[in-house]
């Protein structure tokens, strides 16, 4: 199987001189096609930082990053923006929706900047919204949604472009347990069916069952990487 995401000897330091803190220290990681991986670990252990590096939002101080076999470290800012648009779906720790776009438009805008044909974009936005149970909210502005609904819109948005790699930072933090379970199940199913890959940061141990692998991060190092047996 080919790897969607490869991280080699990734190191990340913030600050200068004596105030320098090492957030990530020599992380090696490989996510294969069709794999759904959970990252867990204590607060401040560098999970969000790792995810930002994986999503080409942050340049690591050290190491090599391959997305879909392409070396991201050598891309210009413009190229990495295009790479994000077409290959990566982001779900941030909080929803980060655009306040002046209705739910439906949040998704259609992604279709537009990715130059999807209008009909196809509409159809896909519809599917994604239905998948997350948001059809009845599609004309709403983010300000008029509940926290959970906002998070689901963010998930639908990340899923809009059929990204090869989905990066989710605690996507279920503001969802109730059953809704969270449902959403992650949908994500897992999509990853399997469409042969994509996903990395999800979570503290919710109940969700580990749905993942192929759970990586525990501690003080910027991968503490353990356990394989779960998933019954399909």
């Amino acid at each position, binding site marked *: 199987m080919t790897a969607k995401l490869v991280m080699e000897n990734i190191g990340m330091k913030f600050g200068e001189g004596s105030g320098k803190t090492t957030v990530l220290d020599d992380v090696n990681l490989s996510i294969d096609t069709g794999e759904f991986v959970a990252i867990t670990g204590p607060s401040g252990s560098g999970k*969000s*930082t790792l*995810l*930002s590096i994986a999503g080409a*939002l*942050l340049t690591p101080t050290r190491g090599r990053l391959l997305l879909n076999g392409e070396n991201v470290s050598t891309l210009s800012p*413009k190229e990495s*923006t*295009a790479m*994000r*648009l*077409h290959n990566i779906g*982001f779900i*941030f*720790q*909080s929803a*980060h*929706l*655009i*306040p*002046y*776009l*209705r739910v439906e*438009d949040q998704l*259609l*805008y*992604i279709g*537009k*900047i*990715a130059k999807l044909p209008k009909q196809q974009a509409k159809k896909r936005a519809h599917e994604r919204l239905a998948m997350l149970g948001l059809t009845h909210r599609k004309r709403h*502005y983010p300000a008029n949604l509940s926290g959970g609904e906002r998070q689901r819109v963010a998930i639908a*948005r*990340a899923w809009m*472009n059929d990204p090869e790699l989905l990066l989710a*930072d605690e996507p279920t933090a503001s969802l109730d347990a059953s809704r969270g379970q449902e959403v992650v199940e949908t994500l897992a199913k999509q990853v399997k069916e469409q042969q994509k890959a996903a990395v999800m940061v979570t503290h919710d141990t109940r969700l580990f069952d749905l993942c192929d692998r759970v990586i525990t991060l501690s003080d910027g190092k991968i503490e353990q990487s356990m394989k779960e047996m998933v019954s399909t």
Partner: protein
Amino acid sequence: MFLALRELAYSKLRYIMVGLIIFLLSFLVLFVSGLAQGLANDNAAAIQNMENEAEYFVIDEEAELQLTRSLIDDEDQQIVNNHVDDTQILGVHQGTIQDEEESITDITKFFVDPDSNLYPEVTEGELPSEGHEVLANESIQEDGYAVGDEFLEDTTEEIFTISGFTSNQTYSHTPVLYVTEEGWQEMSGSDPGSDDDELLASALVLPEISEETVNDLNNELGDGEVVTIQESLSGIPGYSEEQGSLWMMIVFLFIISAFVLAAFFYVITIQKLTQFGILKAIGANVSELARAILVQVVIISVTSVAVGIGATYLVAALLPVGMPFMLPVTMVALLAGLFIVVAILGSLLSLYKVKKVDALEAIGGMEA
């Protein structure tokens, strides 16, 4: 367009306020320009009209561009005629007239050859056919004069008659009376019909001539000098002062507009930096975001300036008749275009800020 329009619709109040500011500034600029043009016209129309037919004046060097003080002697006239074929004598004299009730009106007497293309068109009545007839600018009607009316001329103390009216012929805010050759001779103190019937020339009007000829003339002329008609306008009493202060106001309004708009757009952009960061993170590139901002600026400024133009013409229509106001379409187009350019320049600082925003930083670390 996608982002730009949706945001305008969502944050209506905010953008209506920006639009209102642009509207007020553009209205002020257009209105003051209209006044400047109107005053210029009221002050100098008779001379400005000559620019359509001719290019240069030969004026007395010591007159400091004031036609009323200038006199070109025979010698200089001869020199000019040796170099240029098609010259015209222009006589200018300011004075007053009195009607039967002895009420006094300031006027300016002009003499030009009635057969030359400098002579204005008759809009009412007829061309003067006798010595003591004049063609008057129609603004003299405001002082109660009509075709056929008589008045007392101050230098000759003789009675003259208005044979007809012409339009848009003013000098130094007074109506111009075009006098006959005979009338002009009497007014300049020579005796018409006698041997000494040389015409007194305040200036000579020359057509377009080469740079070389201009230089030759300036070298050879005794007291006279060649100036463009445009340059001579500043010699009309009050012209430079009026135009200078009004145009300074207009320039300052433009500078103020540029700063106000830049500040407005900048504040709005700063407030939205997080959004721009998110948009970048999900894959929108800088040129797309820049386009969204520019589309908004253009929509707001074009709409507001259009309303400003409408309001200016509306107010102009409500102005009292005597108020000099003139706003040619070309002027409006120029100012409106300039205003929109200023608005776009004002948004450049914002564009720079958007270019600089870091997708990750805007998301607030990873928290918030």
